[in-house]
């Protein structure tokens, strides 16, 4: 193989890796974090996100004590910290990580969404601020499981 073709292949491989790593355009949405969403346990997901979070009173998890319908559980995160990422984890769900949020400058570290819960479980609100993950959690009781089982 001549040198030119080798270079093109080399650069496109590097380019591809950089794109996959999200290094190229921060302005665009990061590529879907497949590994994190396939994590089967809290520890799995913590490891992939970077580090095990510390409990913090500065992170607020808004979730009901009892969810009447496990298919639609309103969950929200808010924090007084300058967060650039937030995440919702459901300990007993088949896929632990429910959602991951990226907060650009100028956006408040606040989000509300609705998730499915298969059964009563601890729900975790994670927040990344200053390179560190912090969290708050509570148990949400589910009377009717949300995974159709």
């Amino acid at each position, binding site marked *: 193989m001549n040198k030119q073709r080798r270079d093109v292949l080399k650069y496109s491989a590097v380019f591809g890796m950089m794109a996959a790593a999200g290094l190229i355009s921060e302005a665009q949405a990061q590529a879907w974090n497949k590994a994190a969403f396939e994590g089967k346990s809290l520890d799995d997901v913590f490891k992939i996100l970077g580090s095990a979070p510390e409990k913090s009173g500065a992170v607020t998890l808004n979730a009901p004590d009892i969810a009447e319908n496990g298919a639609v559980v309103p969950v929200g995160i808010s924090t007084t910290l300058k967060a650039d990422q937030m995440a919702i984890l459901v300990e007993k*769900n088949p896929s632990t990580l429910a959602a991951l949020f*990226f907060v650009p400058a*100028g956006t*408040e570290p606040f989000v*509300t969404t609705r998730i*499915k819960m298969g059964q009563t479980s601890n729900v975790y609100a994670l927040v990344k601020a200053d390179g560190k993950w912090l969290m708050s959690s509570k148990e949400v009781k589910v009377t009717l499981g949300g995974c*159709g089982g």
Partner: protein
Amino acid sequence: MADPMRVRATESGGVVDVKILMKHDMESGQRKDAAGKVIPAWFISTLNVKAQGNDVFNAQFGPAVSKDPFLNFKYKGAKGDKLVVIWIDSKGDKRTDEATVA
């Protein structure tokens, strides 16, 4: 193409409150059909919201987000901001909707 999303954005005190209701089945891949076969996972995986061309929110969803996903977030903005919301799902289907901040 998929059904349109409902986007409501209102500004108060320099902060825009954005509520989005997307239309999507969000199959978790956990359910079985009447014949006992697993219904494959199919869900919105990424969502990007731009105001005046700049990112104001990025979300990644897993299969555990509820059907017809709802999202509420807030950013520093102004009335008249043009919002563009784009989602992409696990099959590569894409949907773009726009709204103006009231």
